[in-house]
C-alpha cells in the first residue's frame, strides 16, 4: 500500500496528474469509501486492502470534466467498466492515468460476520495466503480467505487488466465457481417458483437507489426514474413488490453493457442478489450472439446494438420459451 501512495505522490508532484482517485477508510474499517485526493498530505488517508471492493471507474465520469489528468487505481475487473464507459464516450481516456492495481479477491463483511467474527477492525491483505487474518476488537481471528470473498470474486474475470498505464502489485484469478450456475438454477424453476423467488427477493427493496448509483452502466445524466418527462418519477408504491419494475427496467437498460462487476449486489443494503438479473442477460446474450464480455475492449460492437445478418431470428423466443 505504501508503494501505491509513494507512486501517487510522485505523480502528483511531477504534475503528471492533478488528483488521485482511490479509497479511504469510511465510518468503520471495513466500510471503505472512494475518495479524491488532491495533495500529497491528503494521500495519508489513502488505503488499499481487502475491503477496497469499490469500482472507481464511474467516478471518472466527473473526473473527466475536470482540468488535468486524474490518477485512478483500477483492479482488473474495474478496467472492464472503465473500457465500457470509454466506449460510450462517458469517460475520457486521455483524462485518466490508470494504475492497474493488483487484486487477489475482495472481501465481504457479511461473510466474515457469518463466520462468527465480530467487531472487525480491519483485515490483512495476505499474499497467496489461504487464511485471512481479521483484526477485531478481541484480537486477531482467522477465517478461510475464500469463504470471506465477495460473490463476484468466485467468478473472477481473470487477473489481467484490460486497460492501464502502469501496473503495480500482483493479481490472482480467484474464480472457483460456475458463473451461470445460479442463473441456471432459476431457469430450471417453474414460473410459479420463479415468481415467488423474485417476489421474496425484490420485496425487500427499499429503493435506496444504491445499486443504480454505484452501477457504472447506470450513468445516465438523468435516470428515467427521476425524469419528469415520464410519469414514473416519484410514484408511490402500492405494493412491496412494485419495485420489481425498477429492477427489471434497470436490467434491460444495462443489458449488453453490464460488465458483471457485481457492484449492485455488493452495495445492496438488503442483500438482494441483483447481479442475477444482469447475469441472466449475459448468459442469454452469450447463447444467442456468441460469447461477449462487455468492456473487454473499446471498439467491438455491443451485441444488442449491433446488427449482423446471422443474428438469431425473433422466433428463437418461441423455440426457447
Amino acid at each position, binding site marked *: 500500500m505504501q508503494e501505491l501512495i509513494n507512486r501517487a505522490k510522485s505523480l502528483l508532484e511531477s504534475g503528471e496528474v492533478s488528483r488521485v482517485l482511490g479509497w479511504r477508510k469510511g465510518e468503520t474499517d471495513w466500510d471503505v469509501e472512494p475518495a479524491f485526493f488532491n495533495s500529497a498530505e491528503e494521500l495519508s488517508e489513502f488505503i488499499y486492502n481487502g475491503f477496497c471492493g469499490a469500482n472507481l471507474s464511474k467516478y471518472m465520469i466527473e473526473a473527466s*470534466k475536470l482540468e488535468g489528468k486524474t490518477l485512478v487505481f483500477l483492479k482488473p475487473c474495474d478496467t472492464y467498466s472503465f473500457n465500457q464507459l470509454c466506449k*460510450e*464516450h*462517458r469517460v475520457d481516456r486521455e483524462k485518466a492515468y490508470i494504475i492497474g492495481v493488483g487484486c487477489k479477491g475482495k472481501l465481504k463483511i457479511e461473510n466474515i460476520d457469518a463466520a462468527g467474527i465480530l467487531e472487525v477492525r480491519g483485515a490483512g491483505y495476505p499474499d497467496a495466503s489461504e487464511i485471512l487474518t481479521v483484526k477485531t476488537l478481541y484480537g486477531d481471528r482467522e477465517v478461510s480467505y475464500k469463504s470471506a470473498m465477495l460473490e463476484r470474486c468466485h467468478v473472477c474475470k481473470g487477473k489481467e487488466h484490460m486497460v492501464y498505464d502502469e501496473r503495480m502489485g500482483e493479481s490472482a484469478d480467484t474464480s472457483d465457481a460456475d458463473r451461470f450456475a445460479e442463473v441456471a438454477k432459476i431457469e430450471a424453476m417453474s414460473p410459479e417458483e420463479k415468481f415467488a423467488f423474485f417476489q421474496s427477493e425484490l420485496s425487500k427493496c427499499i429503493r435506496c437507489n444504491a445499486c443504480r448509483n454505484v452501477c457504472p452502466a447506470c*450513468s*445516465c*445524466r*438523468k*435516470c*428515467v426514474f427521476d*425524469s419528469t*418527462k*415520464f*410519469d414514473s418519477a416519484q410514484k408511490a408504491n402500492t405494493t412491496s413488490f412494485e419495485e420489481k419494475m425498477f429492477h427489471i427496467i434497470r436490467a434491460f*437498460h*444495462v443489458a449488453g453493457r453490464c460488465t458483471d462487476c457485481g457492484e449492485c449486489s455488493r452495495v445492496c443494503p438488503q442483500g438482494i442478489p441483483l447481479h442475477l438479473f444482469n447475469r441472466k442477460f449475459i448468459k442469454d446474450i452469450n447463447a444467442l450472439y456468441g460469447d461477449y464480455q462487455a468492456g473487454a475492449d473499446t471498439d467491438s*460492437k*455491443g451485441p*444488442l*446494438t*449491433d*446488427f449482423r*445478418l446471422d443474428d438469431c431470428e425473433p422466433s428463437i423466443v418461441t423455440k426457447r420459451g
Partner: protein
Amino acid sequence: MQKIGVFVCHCGSNIAATVDVKKVVEMALLEQGVVHAEDYPYMCSEAGQSRIAAAIAEKGLTGIVVCSCSPRMHEATFRKAAERAGLNPYMVEIANIREHCSWIHKDMAEATEKATILMRAAVAKVHLNAPLQAGESMVTKRALVIGGGIAGIQTAIDIADAGYKVDIVEKTPSIGGRMSQLDKTFPTLDCSACILTPKMVEAAAHENITIHTYSEVEKVSGFVGNFTVDIRKKARYVDIAKCTGCGVCQEKCPSKKIPNEFNRGLNNRSAIYTPFAQAIPNVPVIDTTACIKFKTGKCGVCEKVCQAGAINYKQQDEIITENYGAIVVATGFDTIKLDQYGEYAYGQSKDVITSLELERVMNAAGPTKGHLERLSDGKAPKEIVFIQCVGSRCSDDRGKPYCSKICCMYTAKHAMLIRDKYPDTNVTVFYIDVRTPGKNFDEFYRRAVEDYGVNYIKGQVGKVIPQPDGSLLVQGVDLLDQKQILKKADMVVLATAIEPNTDVRKIATMLTASIDTNNFLTEAHPKLRPVESPTAGVFLSGVCQGPKDIPETVAQAGAAAVKVIGLLAKDKLKTNPCTAQSDELLCNGCSQCANVCPYGAITYETKLINDHGIREDRRVAVVNSALCQGCGACTVTCPSGAMDLKGFSNRQILAEVDAICR
C-alpha cells in the same frame, strides 16, 4: 384541451356484424375531450369522409379518431380527408377495430368491449398528438435490379425504355437465370433460349442498362428515393475489356473435372468457364477453388493461350458504391434439396433425376446433346415415371406447404415432348391433382393425355427401389382404382418443389423487406399492391415473391417496372414527419442510438449545453430528419429516454397503454 371527434365505421358487416358500433359511439361520448361521435356504414366512402369534414367544421374538432380497418388500409385516406377539412393530417388516429377486433372475435360482447378499449387508446393518444409537417426529399433517378433472370431483365428493359438508368446485379457469371437452363416453354413449346437470348442481348445493348455480373449486393443504406448500395464485383481474373470470348482458355484448361452448375452437375466444366454458350457477357471467370494456378501456383495455361492477354491472376474483388431511387428484387428460385426424400432414391440411382435436370438432358446444349438417355448407362429409357409434388403441398417439415405452381405444366410438357420424339417410350405421371389454370393451359394438359397418350395416375409414390438389373421399381398407389401399383421404370423424374433463392434472406435483411415463413418476399398488400414490398422503394419481380411461371413473371416484372417508373418520375417525395428527435438535456452522448440507426441519420456533436444553469460542453445526438425514417429503433435503445419519435412519443404510447389498462 383537444376537441376530439370519434368516427366508427361499420365496414358494411365486416365490423358491424361483430361489434356493436352504436355502443362504441355511446362509450366514446363518455371519454374526456370527445365532443362528437357517430357511426356510418362506410366511413371511407365519399359520404363518410364528408361527414368527417362536416363535423370538423361544425364542432371545431382539433383531433379525430377513426375506428375502422388497419391504418395500412385507410390511414392515408382519412388523413387526406382531415387535411381537406383544414385539420393537420397528423391529428388523425386510427383505431383498428376490424383486423384487430371484429375479424378475430366471434362474440359480440367481447368484440364490442375490445373495440371500446381500442377507441379509448386512440383517444388517449390524440390528446397528446401535435400537428406535424411533412418535409421533402430528392429522388435519385436510377434503379437497381437484383437478379438477372427473366424477371430482372424484363424489369430492367421496361424501366430503361422509359428513359431511366438501371443497373442489374447478377451473382453468377452471366445473366439469363433459370430460364436459360430450360429447353422448351409451355404452353407454346417454343425454345426457351430462342425467346430469352434476344432479351439478354437487348438488355446488354441498352444504353440505359448497366449489367454487373458475377457481382453481389454487399450493403444497402438509405431509403426510398435515396438508396446507397455497395456492390461487390467479384474478381473474374479475366479482363472484360480485353476478352474476345474465343473460348480457347476453356478448351485448354487442364482442370476439367468440376461439376457443371449450369447442367445441374450432370457433366463437368473447366476451372475457367462461361456457364453457357450464349452467356452475357461472353467472358469466362476462373473458379479459384478448382484452378491449378490458384491452388498450386503452377499452371498458367489460360494466360499463355489467351491471345488477347485478358487473363489477370492478380485481379481483386472491387466494391463500387452507387445511388438508387428504387430497388427491385428479382432473385428467383432454386429447387429444394432432396436429402430428406430418401424414398425416391434420388442420389442412389443416376436414373432418378429432377425435372430441372431433365430440362438439361432434353436440351441440345445439355450434357447428352439433347438425346433422352439414362445417365447410368446411356441407354434410351422405354418406361419413364414422373412423380409430381415432390416436396410441394407437403404437410410435414421435409418439404414446402405451398404448391410450386409450375410443375403440373412442365411435367405435361416433358411427357408430351418425350411421347412426340420417342413414341415407343411409355410415360406415366403420378399426381395429387392436376392444376392447370392459365390461358391455354388445360388444353395443353389434355393434349398430353388425349393426343399423346400420357398415362396419368392419381396417387402418390411411396418408394422407388433401384433393382439389380439397373431398372427402378416404382411402388405407388392408384387412388381412383384403389389399388397398389408396382411399376418397373427405366427413369424416374421428380417434379421437385421450388423455393426462393437462398440468398434472398440476406438481401431481404439488407433491404429491411419482410419475408414470409417460406422465405418468399412479402408484398405490401396481397391483392392491391402485389409488386411492392412493404418497405417503400423496394419492389418485387418474379418468383422471389411467390411461385409463378414465365408469362406471370414477365407480367409482374413489367408491373414492378411501372411502379419504379412512377417513383422515378417524381422529382421530390414527401417525407414522413414522424421522425426521431433528441432531448439534449437528457442525452448521454453514448452513441447507442447511432449504432442501431439503420439509416445513418444520427450524428454526434459537442456543444455547450445549459442544463438548468449548469453550462458544460456535452456530446449530444443530432438527428438528420431528412434521413430519419421514423423506425423508432433509437428510441427504444436510448436508456435515458432522450430519443423520442414525433407522432409516436413515449408519452403517447404510455398513454395508450394506460388507456388500455384502465
